[in-house]
């Protein structure tokens, strides 16, 4: 295999506790190609988000590390931009200012007019040009998530890290947002690592689904290739028999092999 774009190299993470270290992640090894959409799927509490934070540099691995384009990275930076679980928008800034803050700090040398137009372009990309002057408190959950995605994309990251990005949305908005983000992603194919616990979300969006075993000492149990052609639509996938085969294999992994935490040892 040619050199991977992003490599998770035998990452382990232990948290100190009064009763000795708690090993959350053990030897997680994964190679991701440029432009690939990878979903990390597992039961809640299995350490998916911890792993994402390590890739983002917000948390340090106890052993192993993250290699991006051949260089080890352990500090946070806008080349691995995160779309946070609860949006993490600054409530005192408008939608536009939230995006602009990100653009300003990642394009320090660029002229003001260019930075403004970048911020406006990405806000328009997620369909929120009309809400540019609204504060996060004045827009809906789905719209906040759009702003958060616009902020992330506007920094033009090498890797986009999505931490259960649709988890806080209602079911209808979630499906709408999944398809919209998919459309945006299919247009420019940024490398994506997405943490989720939704099987259908992973199948709809990802090229590969990386299955995490249950903690403690969670690691990668299996990797499924998602065989559907791009661009994808939910309707087409649901008609494809391969969807049900894949779904059953994922369910079997989650509930037969790793349904009980005892089995994880």
């Amino acid at each position, binding site marked *: 295999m040619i050199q991977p774009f992003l490599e998770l190299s035998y990452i382990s993470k232990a948290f100190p506790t009064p009763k000795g270290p708690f090993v959350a992640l053990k030897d997680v090894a994964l190679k991701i190609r440029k432009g690939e959409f990878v979903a990390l799927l597992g039961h809640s509490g299995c350490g998916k988000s911890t792993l994402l934070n390590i890739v983002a540099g*917000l948390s340090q691995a106890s052993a192993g590390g993250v290699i991006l384009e051949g260089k080890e990275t352990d500090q946070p930076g*806008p080349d*691995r931009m995160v779309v946070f679980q609860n949006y993490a928008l600054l*409530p005192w800034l408008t939608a536009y200012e939230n995006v602009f*803050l990100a653009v300003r*700090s990642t394009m320090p040398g660029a002229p003001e007019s260019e930075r403004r137009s970048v911020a406006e372009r990405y806000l328009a990309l997620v369909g929120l040009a009309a809400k540019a002057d609204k504060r996060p*408190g004045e827009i809906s959950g789905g719209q906040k998530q759009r702003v958060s995605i616009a902020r992330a994309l506007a920094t033009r990251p090498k890797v986009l890290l999505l931490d259960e990005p649709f988890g806080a949305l209602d079911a209808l908005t979630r499906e709408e947002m999944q398809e919209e983000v998919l459309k945006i992603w299919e247009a420019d194919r940024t490398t994506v690592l997405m943490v989720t616990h939704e099987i259908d979300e992973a199948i709809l969006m990802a090229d590969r689904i990386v299955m995490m075993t249950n903690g403690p000492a969670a690691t990668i149990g299996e990797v499924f290739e998602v065989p559907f052609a791009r661009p994808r639509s939910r309707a087409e996938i649901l008609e494809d028999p391969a969807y049900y085969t894949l779904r059953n294999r994922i369910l079997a992994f989650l509930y037969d092999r790793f349904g009980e935490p005892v089995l994880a040892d």
Partner: protein
Amino acid sequence: MTTTNKTVIAPARDEAAGSTPQLKALLERSGTVVLPLVAVAVFLGLWQALSAAGLTGTLPGPLQVVQDVQPLIVGFFNNSENDVGVAWQLAASLQRVAIGYSLAAVVGVAVGILMGSMRPFQLALDPIFQVLRTIPPLAWLPIALAALSQANPSAIFVIFITAVWPIIINTAVGVRSTPQDYRNVASVLKLSKPTYFFEILLPSAASYIFTGLRIAVGLAWLAIVAAEMLTGGVGIGFFIWDSYNSSRMADIILAVLCVGVVGFVLDRTIYYAGRLLVASE
């Protein structure tokens, strides 16, 4: 039968529903004006009755007060050497408070941010401040007089030392409770230190800072009256003490009323400034 009953009753219900909420709303609105007036009238009535019965010592009743303070109200803005009006007494006190409070705000916010963002400062200073903040304002006055040897700077110092603690403590708490999410955004975007300070830390702590500022302005105004009683000179505190010594009881009541109104206005001012400057969540 039932249908006819319904049709008969329905319009009557509509009518009732149309007038009752309006009446209720009117009562509620007038209640916010009328009820406080009723309370004041009852209070004044009781006071008048007690003083008529001779139960209030040398303190005059409200009617007597209204008569006695006439010259004071006429001379409210007098500013001659021997007759300084209440307005100017208040202005002198306000000036001291303004100086002491501004100093406290600047020092308090700065020290609070230092304590909130750097743990060694928190550990070193917090125990000291927890003890110092419980000292009554007037206990500082002899220390201030000894160190500064002048009445006016000492009064200002008392205001400063009274107002500074709630500002420090609230600012430190505000800075410490900056949500992890915002810190994560800042580190992923690699925001520069000044950008982090002005765009994230300050706005995030702003509501806490204003809570501290609001508590502080109340305390400062409480302390100035007491401090001026001891330091003398022009100022509403000394005016009250002086009136007592010259047995001008009605003057005291007018001055105390003014102190209350000014304190209320100060509190509201900081409250509205906070509402204006702190972004709503």
